[in-house]
């Protein structure tokens, strides 16, 4: 049963020349919706059921049927309708790059993931990986491994403290490091297995499997842009840190690329459909991203979204990003970006507001006042109407 998996896993370790030939195996025949077995799994499911019913009543969940069923559809297109039936998808309004799958079949897809992937194939790569965790019962395995590890350490701690010899303390320290190290390594191996299963789904689907590697390439580029804007050292993507929960990104990009079916590269990646499905939510997801105060990362994301052409929404988001950082030169740029947004879409209400506020602070109060007035005439019911009116009236009272 594990034959093909082991073979492909061996390929991961093999020389690059060999890996090119071996692609991920197609998914094994589906064994049907599985039910929890044994005390531990039953317990985890029960706890998870509880947490899912809380999730169903959480305000973090994006309540948009069309969006949710679209995301579910993308998952189904990768793993097949049969497997897909055991999953409930919840789109969470959370700007980080993540998706999770818990033991009972609850899939949480973060809006930060939806903002970062560019096509159905890329989304399917991540969701297929998560489904792999579910199909292989990884949460249960991790729970058991964690339990045995901490059991061992507890006994060792008690025994070591009964021995006054410093060597006993040292070996306890060593044991602690090696137990935690092996637990973390176990996690990373789970991730590799899920990657392998995920790419297997993509190979067998009608989506382009090469997208999986692209997800990680884009993520590395974003992380680099973010580090650069903060003045940090260039991040390393090839090293495994002791506490790392996942394999390094460069490794993942490389083996995912190698495991993708070469013939699949001519398939559609569904980028156009994806863009259309996200259009309604893009401004919201971008707003949340800008709120993260990650200038480099946000700028990278906006620019990569604009690779398909700048829209009023993207110019506006860029204006908001620069205005939020708020130095004088940022405000001058921001005004420029808002103006471009208005050029493309006269009625972009918030762009008029941003333009006005930026101009007011950069020595152009009369133009700023005009922009703010057009903001208020476009949105007479605006929440901040009084504040804006106060601002504009103070501008008239002090003639320059």
């Amino acid at each position: 049963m594990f034959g093909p998996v082991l073979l492909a896993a061996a390929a991961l370790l093999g020389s690059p020349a060999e890996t090119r030939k071996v692609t991920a195996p197609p998914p094994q025949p589906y064994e049907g919706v599985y039910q929890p077995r044994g005390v531990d799994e039953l317990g985890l499911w029960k706890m998870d059921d509880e947490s899912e019913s809380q999730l169903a009543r959480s305000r973090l969940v994006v309540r948009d049927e069309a969006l949710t069923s679209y995301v579910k559809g993308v998952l189904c297109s990768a793993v097949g309708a049969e497997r897909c039936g055991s999953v409930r998808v919840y789109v969470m309004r959370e700007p980080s790059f993540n998706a999770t799958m818990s033991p009972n079949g609850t899939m949480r897809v973060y809006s930060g993931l939806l903002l970062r992937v560019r096509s159905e194939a890329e989304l399917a790569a991540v969701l297929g990986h998560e489904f792999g965790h579910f199909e292989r019962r990884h949460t249960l395995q991790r729970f058991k491994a964690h339990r045995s590890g901490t059991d061992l350490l507890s006994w060792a701690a008690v025994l070591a403290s009964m021995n006054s010899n410093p060597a006993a303390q040292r070996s306890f320290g060593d044991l602690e490091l090696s137990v935690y190290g092996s637990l973390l390594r176990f996690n990373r191996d789970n991730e590799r297995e899920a990657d392998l299963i995920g790419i297997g789904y993509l190979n067998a689907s009608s989506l382009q499997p090469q997208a999986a590697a692209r997800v990680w390439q884009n993520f590395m580029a974003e992380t680099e842009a973010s580090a650069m804007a903060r003045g940090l050292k260039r991040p390393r993507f090839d090293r495994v840190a002791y506490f790392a929960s996942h394999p390094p990104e460069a490794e993942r990009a490389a083996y995912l690329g190698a495991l993708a079916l070469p013939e699949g590269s001519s398939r559609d990646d569904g980028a156009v459909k994806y863009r259309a499905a996200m259009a309604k939510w893009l401004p919201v997801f971008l707003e949340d991203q800008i709120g993260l105060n990650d200038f480099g990362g946000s700028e990278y994301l906006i620019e990569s979204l604009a690779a398909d052409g700048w829209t009023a929404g993207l110019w506006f988001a860029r204006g908001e990003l620069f205005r939020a950082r708020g130095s004088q030169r940022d405000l001058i740029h921001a005004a420029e970006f808002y103006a471009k947004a208005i050029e493309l879409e006269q009625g972009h209400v918030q762009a008029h507001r941003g333009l006005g506020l930026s101009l007011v602070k950069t020595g152009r109060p009369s133009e700023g006042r005009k922009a703010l007035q057009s903001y208020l005439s476009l949105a007479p019911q605006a929440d901040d109407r009084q504040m804006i009116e106060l601002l504009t009236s103070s501008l008239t009272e002090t003639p320059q």
Partner: protein
Amino acid sequence: MNNVICRVAAMLLALGLSTEALAQERTAVRQGFELKSGSGRRVIVFRPKVSVGAQSTGGLFEPNAEWTELARRNMNAALAKQQASLGNTIVEAPDASGDQALLVEEYLNLFDAVSQAVVNYQFFVGNRLPTKKRDNKAGVFDWSLGEGVRDLPGARDADYALFIFNKDAYGSTGRKLLQIVAMLGPRIAVKAGEHKGGAGLVDLRTGDLLWLNADFAMGGDVREVDGAEKRVKQLLEGFPGSEATSAPAAVAAR
């Protein structure tokens, strides 16, 4: 010496010991609050969240589906039985849906967080916040969920809300063995099992916490009918306006 302290601290960490005090205050009533028995006030009860499991040797919570299900059933039955003796009209919270359900969920979580804060920063003597030290001397118990509680479903037709939480982790055999060995050998106190519970009464006009009874070392095995009754009795101990001798009467009435 320092080295020894560090080592002990590391051991405690490895054993997953908590720093909660063994003996601490468990209950408080808001200053000036009094609820007379039979005063005809209406109290909404929000059904308790119950989770039951075991505690592994290393201190991990091991959820147990069967125990949780049993405990939930036992606790609900025990609660229904005790309600009659609380001295005022007890109403079950209406089944909420949509936005109302979201609101209930938020307030359940908020109550959990606030009662946790009360336990940590007022009941636990050694960890009292400066303001709470002062409050405690003056007999002041001042915590609130905010006036937003007015929007809870059913709040308009009631005066108070009763919130309950409960979490049990029974020490596994391994944990108990570890406890014994640690006590006999290096004389380290390892806690086996964790039994947290609390009940609080909230004013549905102001959101103020009127009464809280919270204990992180509760008695009664909730997996059994008798144990669950004992637990519920402990949870509702000192409930304002309850009839002091009601418990045996309730049993007799059965």
